[in-house]
């Protein structure tokens, strides 16, 4: 049972949250949120507990290996942050607040299943499970124009992508005669390669990389803040994880390397350029997420074990450094409003904790030491240069420089601006406080001592598929 503890914990949490939201009374949203946090803690504990578990239940369609358990740890961390953010009472209308934790945990369950799936149909189901939860989460502001709009766009784009994926699955299946990832073989026929490309499009959509990136800014903006937190953190881990698993199985054919290289370079460039002039903080984070997807792809482009490990490491790092800004947004965006840069003005005076969180997060996203963003980039780049991808690293580093422009502007807003007199005082729930402190501590620890987590990532990337 230990092997499946995280999944069970996530499922249990989802059910518990759902049950709690069924209750009646004014305290229900709070209760649900607390159950959600509790569930997230349990899930995280379960993920930690099951970290070393190894199993192959369900007749070979599902594995519990180093990779999956590493991913689940990352997902559980992201879920915890999202659940903590979900305790913020102002971010969503009360009637929907009960749904929020439920859906978060449901999505987490989907992501966890995704990270363990080694068979195409299982994988498809898990992908859809996590996606549906996210679609609903993105549209949870259905009382607002943009809520339903963002949800609709996300969903339709996602549905088209998943239809493409499943079409690709059928082609793969037909041409290789198997749905087991490990049996796909590293030298599939060209028609199967097309199937593979179509199949990957769904995964790339999940990671929001070019050319499947366009939903990200809209969905980030439309989604309630805790939901955006989940999309922006845990979901990335799952997406990178499954890409790692698939690529490990099918090998890196020249075609894939080229496609991923283009996607990587285009994503980081488009993402950073798109973010440059954003004034809405969440949109900005959405664009920047596209760029970070591009960075993470570097690890997959270079097709080495160390590259995959670097991508996985970066995914987890991204949870830590990406969480901070979302927490800030959650705290600032009362009533589900999306804070823009003007709302950040004078943040350092209004709430030093949030300002510090923002600063650390921005430095982290920009890859500045001593945040783990630096180590994350460095490892990716080492893996890339090891395979001769000098120019790719140069492009990525130049992109990181460009990204500094908008990250630093947020910092400047927070640190220099004058507090507008009508700005309401910032009240942080204890959970939010806890989340902020946790994120800061994790950033500092992971930034100063990336070694242990890297070891896990390296283990995860080390050919964990049953051959």
């Amino acid at each position: 049972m230990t092997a499946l503890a995280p999944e069970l914990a996530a499922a249990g949490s989802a059910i518990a949250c759902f049950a709690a939201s069924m209750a009646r009374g004014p305290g229900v949203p709070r209760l649900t949120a607390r159950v959600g946090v509790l569930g997230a803690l349990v899930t995280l504990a379960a993920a930690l507990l099951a970290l070393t578990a190894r199993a192959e239940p369900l007749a070979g369609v599902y594995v519990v290996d180093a990779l999956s358990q590493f991913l689940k740890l990352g997902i559980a961390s992201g879920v915890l942050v999202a659940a903590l953010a979900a305790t913020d009472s102002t971010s969503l209308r009360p009637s929907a607040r009960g749904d929020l934790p439920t859906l978060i945990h449901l999505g987490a369950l989907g992501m966890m299943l995704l990270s363990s799936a080694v068979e195409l149909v299982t994988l498809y189901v898990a992908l859809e499970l996590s996606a549906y939860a996210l679609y609903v989460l993105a549209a949870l502001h259905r009382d607002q124009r943009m809520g339903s709009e963002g949800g609709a766009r996300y969903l339709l784009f996602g549905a088209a992508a998943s239809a493409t994926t499943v079409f690709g699955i059928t082609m793969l299946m037909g041409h290789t005669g198997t749905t087991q990832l490990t049996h796909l073989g590293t030298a599939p026929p060209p028609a199967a390669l097309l199937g593979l490309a179509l199949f990957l499009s769904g995964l790339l959509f999940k990671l929001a990389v070019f050319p499947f990136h366009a939903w990200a800014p809209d969905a980030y903006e439309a989604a309630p803040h805790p939901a955006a937190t989940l999309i922006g953190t845990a979901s990335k881990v799952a997406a990178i994880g499954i890409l790692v698993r698939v690529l490990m199985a099918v090998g890196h054919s020249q075609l894939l390397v080229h496609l991923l290289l283009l996607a990587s370079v285009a994503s980081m460039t488009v993402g950073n350029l798109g973010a440059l002039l954003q004034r809405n903080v969440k949109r900005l984070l959405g664009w920047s997420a596209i760029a970070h997807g591009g960075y993470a792809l570097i690890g997959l482009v270079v097709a080495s074990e160390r590259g995959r490990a670097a991508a996985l490491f970066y995914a987890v790092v991204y949870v830590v450094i990406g969480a901070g800004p979302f927490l800030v947004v959650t705290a600032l965006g009362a009533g589900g409003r999306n804070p823009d840069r003007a709302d950040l003005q004078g943040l350092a005076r209004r709430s030093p904790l949030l300002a510090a969180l923002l600063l650390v997060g921005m430095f982290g996203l920009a890859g500045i030491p001593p945040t783990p963003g630096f180590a994350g980039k460095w490892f990716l780049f080492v893996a890339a240069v090891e395979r001769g991808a000098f120019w790719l690293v140069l492009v990525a580093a130049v992109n990181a420089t460009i990204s500094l422009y908008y990250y630093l502007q947020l910092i400047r807003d927070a640190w220099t601006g004058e507090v507008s007199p009508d700005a309401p005082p910032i009240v942080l729930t204890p959970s939010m406080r806890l989340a902020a402190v946790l994120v800061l501590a994790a950033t500092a620890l992971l930034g100063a001592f990336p070694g242990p987590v890297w070891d896990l990532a390296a283990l995860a990337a080390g050919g964990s598929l049953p051959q």
Partner: protein
Amino acid sequence: MTPLTAFNLCALALFCMGLYGVLARKNLIAMLIGVELMLNAASLNALAWGRYGLVDPAHAAVSGQILVLFIIGLAAAEAAIALAIILAVHRHRHSVDVDDLDTLEG
């Protein structure tokens, strides 16, 4: 032309039609139908491969037919969510035209 190829081509055509529907139709519902067509193309493909293809039960945990079942189930769930969201869109704009989704940009 073997039946397999015929089915494959048919599925491909269906897929393209669905994609065209997604790209060209302005009505959200119609776009959703386009997606369903794409899914059906996948189903057709899977069935064809399952019937005529080489999918070896010894190596494949599931066959094409089983995949189709999953596709159908998931498509239904997807349609439910989609319709709910489209309904929400309609409630705000009294329109389900995709071009009216114009709040979020930039």
